[in-house]
């Protein structure tokens, strides 16, 4: 077997492989370390973190769909203070690679405040700014659905950190390219996409929405083609790297998303149905590469014209 190279370079960060569990599906790493040694991952993106602790939305928060699921968790997290005081020190004991810090907020000031705090954390390799959560009002997605607002968040965050800043975008927009470009022009070091698609299910027996919050974010295998398309569009239009996310469940999906233009690939909902999913994808990557005649994974980034 030929020795294949799965490593990628993400804004100066060397990753052993491009596989990154997506924010909101991997907590702060702790739940998964009971299943496997998570150091096998390229990195992971921790749970969307806000200034204040948040309980999130009422339950039920989950609805099953064909080849996917809807969640309306609503940014439940312990708040930036507890993440810095408790989660990151604990993470250091079992994860020895740079982590991606997913930061959410309800105002420009909150984004900037949290990023400034997390900037001082050595283990944070990249800050991923979530302007695309569909499950909270007056925040999250509202910043990611207009080029001006997304650019404003980007500028505010870039002003307070020296770490690479990736803006995580919502697919629930008419022109993803315009928003990605606005972020790039405002100084974003990269773009992450896609967050979940706004969706809804109805319990036809009860004649009520399944989700207490009525609507939620649809993710899972079914959204993969949408994600590939948006990664393709954005990576062609922007010169900064793209982290692809959405419906990835296999090493072959990782390769497909990289061919579309992704430098690294996030795995989301699949972790929830199979807690070993990300590990299995990492392990399958060299086999799949050999099968497809790929020696160096970074060679295929955006290879589809």
């Amino acid at each position: 077997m030929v020795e294949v190279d799965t490593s990628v370079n993400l804004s100066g960060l060397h990753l052993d492989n491009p596989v990154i569990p997506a924010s909101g599906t991997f907590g702060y790493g702790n739940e998964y370390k009971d299943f496997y040694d998570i150091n096998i991952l390229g990195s992971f993106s921790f749970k969307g973190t806000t200034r204040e602790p948040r309980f999130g939305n009422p339950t039920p928060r989950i609805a099953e769909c064909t080849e996917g699921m809807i969640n309306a968790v609503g940014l439940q997290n312990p708040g930036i203070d507890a993440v810095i005081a408790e989660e990151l020190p604990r993470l250091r004991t079992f994860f020895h690679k740079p982590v991606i810090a997913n930061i959410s907020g309800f105002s420009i000031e909150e984004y900037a405040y949290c990023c400034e705090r997390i900037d001082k954390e050595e283990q944070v390799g990249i800050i991923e700014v979530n302007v695309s959560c569909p499950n909270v009002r007056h925040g999250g997605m509202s910043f990611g659905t207009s080029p001006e607002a997304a650019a404003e968040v980007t500028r505010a965050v870039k002003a307070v950190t020296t770490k690479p800043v990736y803006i995580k975008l919502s697919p629930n927009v008419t022109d993803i390219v315009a928003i990605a470009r606005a972020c790039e022009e405002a100084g974003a070091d990269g773009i992450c996409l896609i967050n979940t698609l706004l969706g809804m299910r109805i319990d036809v027996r009860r004649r009520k929405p399944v989700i207490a919050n009525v609507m939620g974010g649809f993710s899972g295998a079914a959204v993969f083609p949408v994600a590939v398309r948006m990664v393709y569009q954005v990576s062609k239009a922007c010169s900064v790297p793209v982290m692809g996310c959405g419906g990835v469940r296999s090493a072959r999906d990782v390769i497909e998303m990289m061919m579309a233009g992704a430098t690294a690939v996030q795995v989301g909902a699949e972790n929830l149905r199979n807690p070993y999913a990300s590990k299995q994808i990492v392990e399958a990557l060299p086999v799949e590469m050999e099968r497809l005649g790929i020696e160096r994974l970074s060679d295929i980034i955006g290879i589809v014209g």
Partner: protein
Amino acid sequence: MYKNDIYEIRSNEPLTATVWRMVLAGDTQWITAPGQFVNIALEGRYLRRPISVCDWDAGTLTLIYKVVGDGTEQMSRMRPGEHLDLLTGLGNGFRTAVDTQRPLLVGGGVGVPPLYNLARQLLAQGRKVTVVLGFNTADEIFYADEFRALGAEVLVATADGSCGTRGFVTDVLTQCRPDYDYFYACGPLPMLRALCEATPVSGQLSFEERMGCGFGGCMGCSCKTKYGNKRICKEGPVLEKEEIIW
């Protein structure tokens, strides 16, 4: 720790019109407490189905489940010899190391199964166990004889009065006045709440919530307690009476 493994179906049979019992063979070493659950992957279904463990031994586990939707309907069609992918050892389960000599176990409908192994363990520890089972009708009753065979005293309530005390499990408490000093309960939310209001003693209650992953990864099943936010799948499904915010 958790175990993800493939289990072989030994038997799968109806106990009532809608409640089925499935016995699976495989590794049970990660099931450490009564009231824990397994999360079952089903062909063609995106999310796993969490089902509480009724009983287990070194090489088999027994699940009792109610057919409530497409997933459980699919389970009911599976035959002995077929295989299922399970995550086991999920949830905290009931604590038996508590100061009780006369525990009362209260189950409502499909909340009854996790109490079975609990009763077995409590009886093995020399406790005097009384079990109160609540169902809608006599047709829906299951496992009353199995609890009796373990050596527990069994009291039944049916909503329509077709067997035992007419009414709810709380009516059994007021009419039969069982002698108990602690309680364990699993069942529908209104039952759990009514029980907590009806009894002066302390106890543990197992809750149900729609789950994404079953192991704490998605925060889909969170609830607020007096001791902070908890995930029903991870810090639950069993909560102490004293910490519950109704």
